[in-house]
């Protein structure tokens, strides 16, 4: 192939153009024109469309696996607690904001001097933050 870029990494824009040309030139294996313009849908919408699509089908058997049905169920085991700051076992909990902590040092040095909002960031790491809408 004539378009093989040199090994030395490119600094010239010529080389970039050559690399880009691999993709953008007309291809022998494809019709020369672009097919229909596609609408961009975010994943959330793709999933909700899928749910609607599944509901519209009437004769699906109850145990047919679908995108939504293969999602793992919640855990039934007792939840273990960990320190939100360090990840060590979190025996204690600050009643003011629900942050868990390992020992009194973490509480005194970190949690008590926390700037506002940081506690929510820590809680957000385990999805326990308050989301204002």
């Amino acid at each position, binding site marked *: *192939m004539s378009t093989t*870029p*040199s*090994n030395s*990494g*490119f600094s010239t*824009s010529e080389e*970039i*153009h050559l*690399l*880009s040309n*691999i*993709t*953008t030139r007309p*291809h*022998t*294996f*494809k*019709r*020369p024109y672009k*097919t229909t313009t*596609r609408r*961009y*849908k975010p*994943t959330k919408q*793709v*999933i909700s*469309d*899928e749910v609607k*699509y*599944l509901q519209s*089908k009437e*004769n*699906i058997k109850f*145990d*047919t*696996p679908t*995108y939504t049905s*293969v*999602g*793992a*169920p*919640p*855990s*039934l*085991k007792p*939840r*273990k607690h*960990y320190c939100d*700051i*360090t*990840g*060590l*076992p979190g025996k204690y909990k600050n009643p003011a904001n629900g942050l868990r902590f390992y020992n009194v*040092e973490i509480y005194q*040095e970190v949690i008590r001097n926390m700037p506002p909002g940081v506690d929510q960031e820590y809680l957000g*790491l*385990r*999805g*326990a933050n308050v989301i204002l809408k």
Partner: protein
Amino acid sequence: MPSSTQNPQKIYSLRENESPASPEPFYQNYKEGVPIALDLGSSSFKIGLTNSTSPNNVFPTLISRFRDRKANKSLTIIGNDIYRDSSIKSSTKSPFDGPLITNWDYVEDILDYSFEHLSVTSSNGKVNNPIIMTEPPCVPFSQRKNYYELFFETYQVPKITFGIDSLFSHYANTDNYNPKTANSLVIGTGHESTHIIPVVDGRGLLSQAKRIDWGGSQSSQYCSKLLSMKYPYFPSKLNSNHATNIVQDHCYVSNDFQEELKNYLDMENLEKNDVVLQATNELNSGAASSNAANAESKKKSEEELKRQAEKRREQGKRLQLQAQQKRLEKLIQKEQEWEYYSNLKLEFESMNKQQIQARCVQEEFESVEDFNKYVANLDKSLKKARNEDVGDGEEGGDGHSGQWTLVDIPDDQLNEEQIKEKRKQRLMKANFDARERAKQAKAEEEELLRKFEEEQAEWRARDLEDWCAVKKSELADIITKITEKAKLLESFKDRKSMAAQQRMRNIATLANDENGSTSATSRKRRRNANSTIDNDPNDTFGTNDDDWNAYRDITNASLEEQLEEDNQAVLKIEAELLLYDPTFHHEDTFNASQKFDWENSTLHKFIHGPRENILVKLQTESSQKNDGKLLEPEELENHPEVVQRNHQMHFNIERIRIPEILFQPNIAGLDQAGIVEISENLLYHRLDGNFQPGGQSYNLIQDVFLAGGLVKWPNFESRIINEFTSFLPVGAPLKVRRAKDPIVDAWKGMQKWSQTEECENSYVTQAEYDEMGPEYIKEHGLGNVCLK
């Protein structure tokens, strides 16, 4: 201390993604009709013709589209080519949004690019090769529809078939795979999600498969969040490639998470657990020349600084002199006043009460008490003033009493010149007297001190033990006071604490008083309206020492001063104890007990690893070398070792915390069961739960197969063995194995499978697609099921 002699820790640099040495290869052996196997993963894209045993192209599923303004042309750069130029990296995008493909234009571009690299050529405007490709388990209908459209309409491929990546990986790793009897429990970790799929009698049992929404991408995002919160002021930015590489290189699965976690930060464990990550900074990025220039300019400024300091000192001296002069004048005035009033006091001795009263009023005092108070105050302030100035008494005090010849001569015997001179002399005489008195007072004090010392020495000689005990109890008293005050000071920080509220109340009452409220004191004050707060005769404030606490309650500054005083007292007593008490050592001092013990500080070890704080270390080293001289803050800040350390992160607990999420997803707030719990539930409840030979569960546990990129983490297999053994019946024949090459094995499975009859029977042809529509697939053992 052992730590200072420890070897330096091994340092890992933050790894960037590099472009591979060789450019993306072009395939030399293209043939029409040979199936193309294609694994379109959300992390990496693998494609190759199945007449080769390994994929021709493996590259990250990334695309960068940007406009070259000079050439006025849109450019599209894909895969590893992106890393060839740093300016392109910033605009990279993925066709995936989370687990699903959302941008099909990008997919088309990537396919164009990869078909070109496979050297696909065609005379009829079609890709004349069958396609075998991967898809996630239970993929949404719209995804497959888009695939069909893309391949059948854009590329017009003759036929296509889909399968599940982790099942292909299992297929590749199983010799003599029997499509009728293969049994396995496949755990496939992916970039966006993790699947657990039982394979029963050669078929992936998708009705019992489960998906955990956690994979490599979430792990690296979580890692990046953890690190940015652990080091909020980190000087250089951590990008997503760094985070991905940290997770890949340094994480490992803990064999027993709970146990390992408990002692993870113990010094002996931390030494091997702690990973130091070094970000690039000016020092190691080779900017030595600019550094030298910096140093020179700094030297120059140092001279300037010296000059400035000199200037400032001179100014200070002048100000001091002025202030001293002023103080002296005031002192003299006070002395004269004091003399006058002490004479008056002597006079009072020969008078009766009423006469005294009258005299007082004549002198513009309210009463005798007022007079006494005033004189007492004057006395106090005089003593204080004398003490202040007694140190520099030598300069002005060389005059003798004989010099002041004019002082005792009445004014009417002097001319104007002499009167002026006399005034001056009187001033000087008073000054001299004041100094004399101060000297005397000081000498008295010294005498007292000497006597006290003698007493102490005598006491020590008599009963050392008793003396020590008393001193120690004194020391303990002061230390309790200090801790109490420190606590009080601390509690002021909290707006809601008792102390802070008491303080607010005090301020409120004071403010109220000034506004003239109905409180008792203010009523009294209004009765004698001409008396201000300063000379109110009924005001006995200050007679009791505790009254002054009112001010202390309001300003915290005095509390700090007191703390300082107490600290001085502690030092003094400790110095005495160190000198005389043989049982009292440096380790017993208050200071030593307060000293930061980093080896026992969880937080220090978590953030700074198993080494002493570099600032403290440098300071102690410097003070040892240069007799207690400490480094300047600026010097410290630019110290190469400090700069280096500031660009370091310590990756310790996170090493096991991040992989653990696959086992306990709720650590990251994901409300799903972990892979072990799901497997247990599957083996015991959703399958037959029969662990005797012939049972479904029995067959499955003989081949637990781990696929996907995350199983490259060390200990993944042994953790699975540990956990499975704990819930399986005793003696169950558990076997766990891992894909040989977790990234490429899915492609290899497709390649191997493409030779089989099953594959031949699973293709959907263009004609079938046209007839049945996009919902139609042919089911096979390694693929999804049709909706029905």
